[in-house]
């Protein structure tokens, strides 16, 4: 009889500890920088962090420091789908937490899509993002990458931050490519898997 009560006690404890894993806040964020264009039309690197935790296939954005325009949310959902395909895993048993770390008013646009996909793969697999590499490309529905606006300013901002490689879509036109500093190498890739591979190498 006592053994039975003990067993139930242990079972309850284990269920509670199991639930706490699911219902606690995330830890283990990685930080990455998305090239962006400010309203003043200069380039800058916007810091984001991401964590992944066992969960229910949800995505959370932290709204304390800035608001995320619906197109950013949409691009993040696309990135999640592409990351699932690249890793051949299903993220329905995980929750993703996206935080923006600067005190900006709002973030908009889809140009961080390929970076979001790389960050998701990085967190999930534990392989770090290459700290010298930047990327700015939109995700398309067929896994290819689309060009983005303000690419020259973004490359200059990445160069100023000490990056040595910049990945863009193979369709990207760089208006002032010849005037860019030689210290940063431009890499054109055709699809999201190549982009993620380059970001993690």
């Amino acid at each position, binding site marked *: 009889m006592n053994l039975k009560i003990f067993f139930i006690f242990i079972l309850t404890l*284990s269920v*509670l500890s199991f639930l*706490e894993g699911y219902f606690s*806040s995330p830890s283990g964020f990685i930080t990455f920088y998305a090239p962006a264009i400010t309203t003043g039309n200069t380039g800058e690197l916007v810091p984001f962090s991401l964590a992944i935790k066992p969960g229910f296939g949800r995505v959370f954005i932290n*709204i304390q420091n800035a608001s995320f325009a619906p197109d950013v949310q949409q691009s993040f959902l696309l990135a999640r789908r592409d990351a699932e395909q690249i890793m051949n895993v299903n993220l329905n048993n995980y929750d993703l*937490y996206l935080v923006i770390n600067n005190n900006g008013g709002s973030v908009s646009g889809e140009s961080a899509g390929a970076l979001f996909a790389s960050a998701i793969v990085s967190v999930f697999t534990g392989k770090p993002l290459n700290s010298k590499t930047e990327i700015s490309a939109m995700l398309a529905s067929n896994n290819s990458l689309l060009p983005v606006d303000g690419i020259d300013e973004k490359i200059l901002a990445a160069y100023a931050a000490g990056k040595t490689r910049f990945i863009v879509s193979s369709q990207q036109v760089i208006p002032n490519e010849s005037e860019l500093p030689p210290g940063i190498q431009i890499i054109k890739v055709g699809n999201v898997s190549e982009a993620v591979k380059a970001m993690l190498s």
Partner: protein
Amino acid sequence: MLVIIIFLSFLLGYSSTTSKKSIPQSQSNQNCGLNASNVKVVINSTCNSTPYFSNSITIPLVAVSSAGGGEVVNLTITEKPGSGKTFFEFSLSSPLIANETQNSFSRAVEVAKNFDAQTMLNSQKVDLYYSFDSNVSEVDGYSAGLGAAVGTILLLKNESLKTGVGVTGGVELNGSVTPVGGVLDKAQALKNAGFTEFVIPAGEGVVNTTENSTTQNCTQTIVNGQVFNECFTQTIYTIVPESVEKTVGINVVEVSDVKQAYAQLASQ
């Protein structure tokens, strides 16, 4: 067998994190024991302790769709042990959230934290999660702000929402409630969904509707023995103040600040 292995692996994975945490303050205050009631397992926050697991509250809000007509949208707020962060959920099955709505929620969270000493203290120990349960593709506007503020206050104070009540309204950082419009459609949507009370911004309980009436005016003129009939139609537009409460048949309560809204929406 596989299930047992999976279960054990979870057990191993999480026991390391839980074992470091003793149940906070459980001896220091008789109200602070583990409190298990239906799905939520919390430590009674009247003793300002950290919730041991997550705890959530659902607030019925009403949206007006671009096609017209109101729709009841449930907002679920969850607190988890944390450090005062605020998260919004979006997924393939929940709507995207417009910037304006995110900003209104940021204000709502600040208002809730600054509501009283208890909400201030408890807000520092939890992370707050907001999610909409709706089929719409995008949530826009700021009219969920008041519901978000009061819901957060109730959650942080471990109190519950009165049943059968819905809420709409914007909220400013100083706690004042701002008008939102569409109250008549929203009241109707709540009424249709079986709600009995609607908390709205002050001054919005009476809606001005326009009624038009057409009259035909004819004049007869006789010139040199000939009869001329001249007729014209006249449309008169009248602005008719319409009570939302009477029109819809739902108990309407106007509030001008968060304190009044809290007093009205808290159960007990």
